[in-house]
């Protein structure tokens, strides 16, 4: 077992301290998190949506990159467990005065942070922080590398809807090259025994050999219509315009023509197929508005489930 950035040794699962990616999670551990998430969802359905479990713990949301749903989701999760939640955004902080990442982390530690939830545009940044922080670090998205909590909430959403993950055909379509969501979902879905298909224009996926080296059982395709046959889940990724260097796509219109989720395409998979998207969506580019709001879409459920899954993770990390 190795971690993506190769900095921190993989944690034995019964002594997990950090959640950096899903590569060091066993199927058993993921299963336990999914089960605990069911209970957390029950808590969120109550009139009083709060339990005292993490009273007195301090969680810092350390966001160096913009985020709406992930940050709010972590904030709600921490508060539902009665933790003190502090939001840190790079803008307006000493980072603008040139404070380094490690100095920032040492400062937060001195201020009494027990857990750091961290988003950063540099791949591997949370691994560096984990080496310098005495508490737990949760990766809330690092560059193109990993977004493990998004993958866990995707797994949870599929598991709640379809009752299993093993044996499902999961198609991930879009800007795979720039997508940390795709990579963490690959670890999660393959570890739980699903069959994953990555579908993208060749310029947005890179060489097949790169993927096959880690996931030999993976299917790579640039034909979405073909990939959708027999699919149980199709997940459209956001076209990451802000990460896109020139020349990867002829035009957004051309991309849409071949790779957007339209009602006709989803019909190829059949009415049982779940439609997912990690958000934020470019409606009309990678997914059509009518598909995003159709009965097959579980996109809003993904967002709601995110709070429950993050509660389950915060709870587990506090138990060490």
């Amino acid at each position, binding site marked *: 077992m190795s971690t993506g950035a190769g900095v921190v040794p993989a944690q034995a699962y*019964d*002594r*997990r301290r950090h959640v950096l990616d899903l590569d060091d999670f066993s199927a058993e551990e993921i299963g*336990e998190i999914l*089960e*605990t998430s*069911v*209970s*957390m969802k*029950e*808590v969120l359905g*109550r*009139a*009083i949506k*709060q*339990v*005292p*479990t*993490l009273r007195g713990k301090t969680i810092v949301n350390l966001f160096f990159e913009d985020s709406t749903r992930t940050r709010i989701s972590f904030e709600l999760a921490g508060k539902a*467990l009665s933790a003190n939640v502090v939001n840190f955004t790079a803008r307006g902080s000493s980072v603008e005065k040139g404070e380094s990442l490690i100095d920032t982390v040492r400062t937060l530690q001195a201020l009494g942070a027990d857990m750091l939830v961290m988003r950063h545009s540099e791949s591997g940044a949370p691994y560096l922080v984990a080496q310098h922080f005495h508490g737990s670090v949760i990766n809330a998205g690092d560059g193109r590398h990993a977004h493990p909590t998004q993958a866990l909430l995707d797994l949870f959403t599929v598991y709640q809807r379809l009752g299993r993950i093993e044996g499902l055909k999961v198609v991930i379509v879009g800007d795979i090259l720039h997508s940390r969501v795709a990579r963490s979902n690959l670890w999660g879905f393959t570890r739980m025994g699903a069959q994953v298909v990555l579908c993208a224009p060749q310029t947005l996926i890179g060489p097949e050999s790169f993927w096959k080296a880690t996931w030999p059982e993976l299917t790579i395709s640039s034909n979405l219509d073909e990939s959708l046959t027999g699919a149980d889940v199709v997940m459209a990724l956001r076209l990451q315009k802000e990460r896109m260097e020139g020349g990867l796509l002829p035009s957004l219109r051309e991309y849409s023509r071949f790779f957007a989720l339209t009602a006709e395409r989803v019909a190829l998979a059949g009415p049982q197929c779940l439609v997912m998207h990690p958000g934020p969506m470019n409606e009309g580019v990678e997914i059509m508005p009518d598909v995003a709001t159709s009965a097959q879409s579980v996109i809003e459920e993904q967002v709601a489930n995110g709070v429950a899954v993050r509660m*389950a993770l915060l*709870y*587990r990390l*506090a*138990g*060490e």
Partner: protein
Amino acid sequence: MSEKQILAADDIRRAVTRIAHEIAERNEGVANVALVGIRRRGVPLAARIAAVLAEIEQVRVPVGILDITLYRDDLGLRGPAPVVHATAIPFDITGRTVILVDDVLYTGRTVRAALDALTDLGRPSRIQLAVLVDRGHRELPIRADFVGKNVPTARDERITTRLHEVDGGEDGVFIVRQD
């Protein structure tokens, strides 16, 4: 390790029946009573008490399940966080007499957590406690209203309850001594 049986299947059955009668008597019927079993072995015990009440009082009392993991005071003290199982109380507890059911009463910390969990879900008019075995050594000012059997124990002994719904096989309560 030695194991001594203190309650056999028949003893458990009689204890459950007696507790059900006491519940009906103490509350002058069970019209306003609900049972809530604490995971795991309080759950089948609550169901058994409800079955006896259905027979003797002709009333089906609502039965719920409480998982107290999120209310424990020892998270981080006992190793990895255990999986949290669902709480399922599909009725409004506000205004009812809720009877918490568990297999063994020991330090009282589980019951303390259960009281917190329950009051987060509503405002019962009264909460009572029924246990199959009270083994003493309370660390909190908590007592049971209905007790199957009082069993004097030493702190280094363990009480093991086996109920067929959870453990399979035959019912029994045992004292386990480490030799």
